[in-house]
């Protein structure tokens, strides 16, 4: 291993990074830096939370039409409908709440997880889809602030949020 490392510094770095992440759980656990970045960015954009939510939900319905299957009970599933707008606001409210519970998402989102698991039964693959749309909207509305560093922190946060939301599924 040492010989390989001497030959390839990047391999050494990869091994070190891997063992670091095994001990600190960087892939799915939010580091202090991540949380800091999320909270800071959220403070900057929370004033537009409703717009972000409505935009993200609308885009989800347009770009991933299969997601409309969850809203068959709406008379109007078009992205600009009142229902869609309102729902985007509701969902983003959940994200805002999750920011305040960032230190223990599993506990903080317990009742929301039960709702999604037993009542809504949204396939968790869709959490990834909506997260992507949220990131696209954030980049769109805050191009200067949504740096790669903020992006990775937000992506990790939304992934952790989705994981906590899926906790009660099975």
């Amino acid at each position, binding site marked *: 291993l040492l010989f390989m490392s001497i030959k*390839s510094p990047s391999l050494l770095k990869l091994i070190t*990074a891997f063992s670091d992440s095994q001990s600190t759980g960087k892939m799915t656990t939010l580091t202090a830096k991540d949380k800091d970045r999320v909270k800071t960015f959220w403070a900057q954009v929370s004033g537009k939370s409703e717009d972000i939510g409505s935009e993200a939900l*609308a*885009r989800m319905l347009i*770009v991933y039409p299969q997601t409309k299957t969850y809203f068959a009970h709406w008379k109007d599933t078009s992205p600009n409908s009142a229902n869609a707008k309102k729902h985007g606001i509701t969902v983003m409210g959940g994200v805002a709440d999750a920011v305040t519970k960032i230190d223990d998402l599993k506990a903080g989102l317990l009742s929301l997880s039960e709702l999604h698991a037993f009542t809504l039964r949204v396939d968790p693959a869709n959490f990834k889809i909506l997260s992507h749309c949220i990131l*696209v909207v954030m*980049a*769109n509305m805050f191009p200067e602030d*949504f740096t790669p560093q903020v992006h990775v922190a937000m992506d990790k946060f939304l992934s952790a949020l989705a994981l906590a939301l899926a906790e009660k599924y099975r």
Partner: protein
Amino acid sequence: MVEWTDFERATIADIFSKMEYEVIGPAALSRCLVVYPWTQRYFGNFGNLYNAAAIIGNPLVAKHGTTILHGLDRAVKNMDNIKSEYAELSVLHSEKLHVDPDNFKLLSDCLTIVVSAKLGKEFNGEVQAAFQKFLAVVVNSLGRQYH
């Protein structure tokens, strides 16, 4: 055979006609390396990738980002035959470069986000849908020759 609406064709043509390759390419690739650090595995000889700042400032990353983005040009020029356009490149990525095709999706997500930031209001839901459909077809074609 992929069906493209007039809107989709016009949207893709428009986006690429004003594409700043030397800005968007580097931004997309460096973002990918930062957000999905395991993608750095393919760039062992690119020098300093030790932190976000190093990645973003790395000239080899920038150059390669531009190259990759120009790689999309052939699809833009021949939207009705993307699969055959990328057959050779697919073989290259599989047999010579040994790139896990999942990475194509990661990069295309980053490209979407960078373009979204650049175009602002113009990048609405319908435009996003067209852009993502285009990238999905390219990604699919690039993975086609893997075995």
